[in-house]
């Protein structure tokens, strides 16, 4: 009986020896814990996002590299397919509309799946050809590793404008063919994540 009374006494607030938390203390600690956790979770979340961005950046880089290697192989080994774009009525230095430039036919051993760049431009800016939202490689050729990136901007210019091997008389076309490319590959999930590149590929084909 005595013991019980003592226990009861312990719980009284006026007694300074009482151990335990008051409601205020509990609330305060919960609030502090919440603040700390939100900070920690927030930074964890940012870390996860950053990591994801790094992974996606690597994907973009691989995709870009793969595509550029293909273009380079094509241009170096086979030159520019002047016949194909002449056949399709594409001017390389003026009157850019919604057109397609065929760089070559035998990339995948089939004329049905040419490598293509869809272009929009104006007469004022010959050689400044914009591509927006158009994947460089169509689905059939399976060059793209995922659907989460796009070419935000593509400018390219083929030089010379006419096939140097078929225009011997015209001195200004007697140039080694090359393609100048400027493009920006952008991630769809993280639009800030983009890789701009500018490069030129010179043909290694020295005879028709």
């Amino acid at each position, binding site marked *: 009986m005595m013991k019980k009374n003592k226990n009861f006494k312990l719980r009284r607030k006026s007694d*300074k020896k009482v151990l335990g938390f008051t409601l205020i203390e509990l609330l305060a600690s919960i609030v502090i814990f919440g603040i700390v956790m939100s900070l920690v979770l927030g*930074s964890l979340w940012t870390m996860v996002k950053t990591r994801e*961005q790094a992974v996606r950046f690597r994907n973009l880089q691989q995709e870009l590299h793969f595509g*550029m290697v293909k273009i380079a192989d094509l241009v170096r080994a086979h030159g520019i397919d002047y016949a194909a774009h002449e056949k399709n009525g594409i001017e390389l230095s003026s009157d850019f509309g919604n057109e397609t430039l065929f760089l070559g036919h035998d990339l995948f051993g089939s004329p049905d799946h040419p490598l293509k760049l869809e272009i929009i431009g104006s007469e004022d800016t010959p050689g400044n050809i914009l591509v927006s939202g158009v994947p460089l490689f169509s689905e059939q050729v399976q060059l793209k590793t995922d659907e989460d990136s796009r070419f935000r901007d593509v400018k390219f210019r083929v*030089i010379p404008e006419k096939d140097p091997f078929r225009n011997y008389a015209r*001195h200004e*076309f*007697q140039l*080694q063919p090359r393609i100048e490319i400027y493009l920006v590959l952008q991630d769809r999930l993280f639009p800030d994540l983009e890789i701009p590149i500018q*490069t030129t590929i010179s043909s290694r084909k020295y005879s028709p």
Partner: protein
Amino acid sequence: MNRRVSGFTLFETLISVGLLSIMLFGSVTLILQMVIATDHNKNVVTASYMLQECMELTRNFRDSRWKQNLQWDCGLVADKKFRIDGSDISEKLPLTTDDACYGTSFKGDYVYLYEVENETDEGQFQIFWDEIEPYFYRKIHFTHEDETQDKQDQVLAHCEVWWYERGERENLEMSMGLTNWHKR
């Protein structure tokens, strides 16, 4: 005064605040490092393509002159620093070199080698393109092999691309041997 009042001492508080700040600092540093690494990698990719372009333009420069029956190493002058540009930019900039190869003998679209006399003027090497940060700079120079030996048909092209990242200069370099592969 009742010494048994529960609560934290200053020491305990300091310890807990310290622990908390170490935790937060660690994760923040990690995030920052990852952001920096991604940013750096992006710039390296961009620069490496510019470096590749530098070599391709040089090759094209040689091949086009060869095609028009000019001397194969025409314009690849030793011991001078150049900025190299493709045709797009060449329309906007004046020609500054008086090399014989740029005269009326050469027709058509140019790959330009601009001689930069004052190397400390970094802006002279800047690559012009829109909206892209950071700015990239590109320099090319040539060295000719010892002409007394059997090496007069070789020119070495050295290209450097550099840029600034948080105030630090970063760069990539590449060298390529160009030969008079198609003697005639």
